[in-house]
Every structure is written in structure tokens, then in C-alpha cells.
């Protein structure tokens, strides 16, 4: 870990040490690099490949109110520079998780963020209450990309009022730092506003984009479930634009993700306004990618005379980007 520079300011001469530390409210991360939910298990699976004492933290695979066996297979497929997945939130349920896994997971030497997913607002509240009772839960990422069973299966994350209500209820049940994870399959600015109104402490985005692939020889979808979530470098420009827009629209810290697989990608998200970033799909091809990103960020700061990476957040140059173009999908 880099030494903390007491008066970290931008300066033209290369600093001898670079601070990669960033803060999310009361939480201090040794660096802005987190492993994304669903790609890092419960933090021990990459043992031998990744030392958790070197990363900013990780988000657990989402836990649900009850155990789930997951979807039919194939559950993953590769597309150009992307991955489609439809795992189906396979997990053993929050009670089993808190009893058996959490006592170990919470001791990992980095920020551990618990991810929860549910099919009704009440279930989200109940899971927050259980996490609070279990103790040691510093932060919860609320996975909003789930169908709301009571509202005809509409995704929670597509309805700003539903998101606001979930956040408000979760805040009542837990003192943990609450991160609302947004789906890109809706207007993220409107959803972020709902999350902020409900009391979210931070926003993370993007979850996967709805996608599909077809095996033309067999005339079947690549995934057994037909459609799934697209991730990987293919989604990065979309994720970056959404992150930028949300950063401009909210006062909350933003955790950006979507296709980050290189330190340059990570710096782009931070210039766009993200306080921290998450790495997901890239881990599968390159389990060392987080270490490479951390090293690349440090080198970048040194090269640009930046003593503390937090000074880089939201410093994109070049004036205002035309927002209508982004909204309307205008092109050249």
C-alpha cells in the first residue's frame, strides 16, 4: 500500500509516492479497485491468484432471501469482446450465508461489500435487517436488476419510485453504507435520482446490458435462457457515458464499472467522475488484472505529477459535453 501523502496536491514534479486511497463516506479504500459482484464469489475463490490485502475491496456474489439453484445451462457464452451470462443468482440464501460464510468473509483484509438481490421490497428490507443483526456489515450493494414479482415482473431498477422506496426502507433497517447498483436497461439518471431521494449513500453502475446471441447452425440461443446480461469491453463506452451522466447529475459518490480490463479504462471512469471502479468479467481471462490496473494507476499518477488519485476524480477536461446528444443517441 502506498504511503498517504499528507498534502496531496497536483504538482508538476513527479511525486515520490502516490496515494491511491479513496473514501466512500466513512469507508477508506487503500485503492479504488474493487472486484464486481458475481465475478469474485465470496472473496476466497481466487486465493493463490489475488491477495485481497492489495485490492480496494470486493462485492460478494448476490445473496437472495432463499436458496436458488440457478438457471439451465449453458449459462455463459462469449460474444465479440463480450460475455453473455444468465447464471440465475445461484446461492444458498442469506441465512446460510450469514451463518456459514459471513464470519469468514468479513475478515478479509479489504473492504467487503455485501450484495443483496430480492423479488419484493419487503425482502430487501428483511435482508438488510438480517445483515444488521449479523454484525460487521459495513456496506451493502443493492442489486436492483431483479424482477419485482408483485409488479408483474418489471425490473425494480427501471422504476425510480420503487428504487426510492427500497432505499428508504433499507436505510431504516441498517446502518451500513448503502450502494444502489443501477441497471443500464433504464435511464440511469432518473434511477440515480430515485436512489438519492431514498437515502442511498452511493451509486454503482452499470449492471449488465440485456443481450442475446444465436447459434445459427443449431438455430438456438447461445444461452439456455435465451437472453442474458452482456458484460466485457463491448459495453465499456456505454458504461462510461452512463457513469459520466450520473456523476454530473448526483451529489453521491459513484462507483463505475462495465468492461474495465486495463488501467486506462479505470482512469477513464475516474476522470468521468467515479470515486472507485469495479472489475468483473476481465478477471476471468486475466486473474491478475486488478494488480495490473493498480500498478498502472500508480504509474499514471506518477507520470502526471498527481500525488493522490482522489485529486483525479471528475477532472475531465474540455468543457461541457453535450448531454442531449447522449440522450437522443445522436451520431455523426
Amino acid at each position, binding site marked *: 500500500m502506498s504511503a498517504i501523502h499528507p498534502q496531496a496536491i497536483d504538482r508538476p514534479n513527479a511525486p515520490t509516492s502516490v496515494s491511491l486511497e479513496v473514501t466512500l463516506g466513512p469507508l477508506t479504500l487503500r485503492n479504488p479497485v474493487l472486484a464486481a459482484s*458475481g*465475478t*469474485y*464469489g465470496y472473496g476466497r*475463490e*481466487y486465493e*493463490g*491468484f489475488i491477495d485481497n490485502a492489495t485490492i480496494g475491496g470486493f462485492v460478494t*456474489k448476490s445473496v437472495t432471501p432463499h*436458496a436458488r*439453484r*440457478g438457471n*439451465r*445451462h*449453458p*449459462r*455463459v*457464452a*462469449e460474444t*465479440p*469482446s*463480450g*460475455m453473455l*451470462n444468465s*447464471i440465475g443468482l*445461484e*446461492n*444458498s*440464501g442469506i*441465512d*446460510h450465508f450469514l451463518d*456459514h460464510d459471513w464470519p469468514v468473509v468479513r475478515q478479509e483484509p479489504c473492504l467487503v461489500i455485501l450484495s443483496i438481490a430480492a423479488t419484493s421490497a419487503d425482502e430487501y428490507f428483511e435482508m438488510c435487517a438480517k445483515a444488521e443483526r449479523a454484525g460487521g456489515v459495513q456496506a451493502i450493494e443493492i442489486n436492483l436488476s431483479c424482477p419485482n414479482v408483485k409488479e408483474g415482473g418489471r425490473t425494480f431498477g427501471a422504476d425510480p419510485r420503487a428504487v426510492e422506496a427500497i432505499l428508504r426502507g433499507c436505510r431504516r433497517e441498517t446502518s451500513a453504507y448503502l450502494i444502489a447498483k443501477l441497471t443500464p436497461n433504464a435511464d440511469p439518471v432518473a434511477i440515480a435520482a430515485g436512489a438519492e431521494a431514498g437515502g442511498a449513500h452511493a451509486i454503482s453502475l452499470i449492471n449488465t446490458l440485456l443481450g442475446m446471441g444465436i447459434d445459427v447452425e443449431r438455430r438456438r440461443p447461445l444461452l*439456455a435462457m435465451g437472453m442474458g446480461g452482456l458484460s*466485457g*469491453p463491448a459495453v465499456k463506452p456505454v458504461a462510461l457515458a452512463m457513469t459520466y451522466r450520473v456523476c454530473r447529475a448526483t451529489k453521491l459518490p459513484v462507483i463505475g464499472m462495465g468492461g474495465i*480490463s486495463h488501467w486506462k479504462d479505470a482512469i477513464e471512469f475516474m476522470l468521468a467522475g467515479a470515486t472507485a471502479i469495479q472489475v468483473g*468479467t*476481465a*478477471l*476471468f*481471462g486475466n*486473474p*491478475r488484472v486488478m494488480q495490473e490496473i493498480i500498478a498502472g494507476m500508480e504509474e499514471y499518477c506518477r507520470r502526471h505529477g498527481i500525488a493522490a488519485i482522489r485529486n483525479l476524480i471528475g477532472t475531465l477536461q474540455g468543457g461541457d459535453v453535450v448531454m442531449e446528444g447522449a440522450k437522443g443517441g445522436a451520431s455523426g
Partner: protein
Amino acid sequence: MIHPQVTEASAPRAHARIEIGRVTASIDAAPGVGLLAFSSPEIAQSYLPGSFVHLKTGDCSTILRRPFSIARVRGEDIVLLYRIIGGGTEWMRALRPGDEVNAMGPLGCGFSLRMHAGRTLFVGGGLGIAPLLGLAEALLREGYRAPSEALLGVRSANDVFGPTLTEGVEHLEWHLATDDGSSGFAGNVVGLLERRLKELATEGVRPRDLAVYAAGPEPMLESTARVCVPRGIDLQVSMEAHMGCAVGACRACGIVTYRDESRLNGRVCKEGPVFDAAEILWEGVGR
């Protein structure tokens, strides 16, 4: 309530790492079948029969690795047999000696060696035979001397992989099944297995004296289990699945349903790829 499986202490698990190796051989072993050998001293040293490697294939736009069973280890070389089905496998076929191979492995839980079995049968569906070759060699090396036979199912006599197959496992008694009847038993390898089991029964071989190891496509493994498990025959199967991480994090391959309903699905990459067939609820696998 369903819970993650606690891996049995008996399941052998290797210590995995990422290693950049060099191709030592890349040839066509048979029409449509490639053989790739690459030096990877650390992975070779940690190899356990049944373990696999997760390979980077293709250029940087290919973002997922691909899992391959390790067919055998020759000194510091890892040997793979693979079907050329386009994409990453065409890229593999184009590799030439000296080219780099980025491999992660050895991964997963391998076969438990049944040293006391009175007779061993290796049942391979097509290229599924690959991990059984290294297993047969390991049993021999460990001093296993009871009669051992290999049952191989292929589409036609043209699909037999030639000397690359039998090298190092010459001690095996080979039985062939061809779908088109062009050589050996006419039918699939499970039909051949049933016939062999009848023959062995008339020779006085008891089911409980047998150890059967099977690898191949999932329907073939399921059929093999339906033959062996009710008869009380010890059967280990090596499963295949699409994978993401290959270290147990993403659950893309969590498709193996256990008879014990309290256990969460088995991950092919972590609890597997080798499973005790008697523990699997085949109706549930992958559904």
C-alpha cells in the same frame, strides 16, 4: 434449505497457477482432432489425473479462457487433445512450436485412484477419453496391475485417434464401439459397456470388484451412470461445462445436482470436474 457442498477430503485437488508455456508440438491427431503439447513445468508438476487447464485462446478480443482436460503429462509438457470446432480451437491448431501458451492450472478435483479394484474399465465417449489416458498412466505408475481395459466410442473407424491415443497406455485392453458399425461393437460406448459387464459377470467378476472411470458428453455419462450405479459399480465421471472463471467464483458451471437435496449444485470447475456418479441426481443436471 440447500447449501454449498463441503468438498470431501478424499477428492484430490491441485495447486493452480498461471504459467506462460511454449508449444512443443501441435499436430492433427485425427481428422478434426488436434493435439497440443506445451512446456509448463509448474503445471506439469502439480498435475493430478482428471484436472484441467483454462487456456487463453485467440487474440485479445477473446476475453474468456477455455477449459481443456489434461490428456497426459510428458516430463514438463502438458498434452491436450481437442476437437477443432472453430474460433479458439482453430487458433490453437495454428500454433507452432515455440509459440506462447497462457495456461491457468491445474484446476479442479481429479479422480480418486481405486488401487484395490479387481478390474478397471475406462469408458470414453469420443475425445472424452482424453483425461482417462493420464489416469491410466497414473494408476500404472502407482503400481496398479489388475486387468485394465479401455472402452472407446466413436462415430466411425476413421475417428480413431491413432498412436497418439495408445502411447503410454499399451497395457490396456482396447474395445471399440462405432456408431456406424464400421469397426468393433456397432452402437454407442454405453451399449459396449453393458455387453462387457455381462461378459465379465459370466467370468465371475463381481460388480463390487470393478472400478469404472468415464468421461465424455453429458448424455453418455448419464447413461453410463444408469448402467453402473444400480448395479453397485463404483463409477467416477468427468463432467464438461461452459465456464467463466474456472475457480468457483462465477457459478457458470454450477450445474451438477446432488441426490442430497441439502447441497447446492456442484461446480464442474471446483467440486468437479470429477464426480462420484452415485451422488448425482441426473434428472437435475443442468436443468
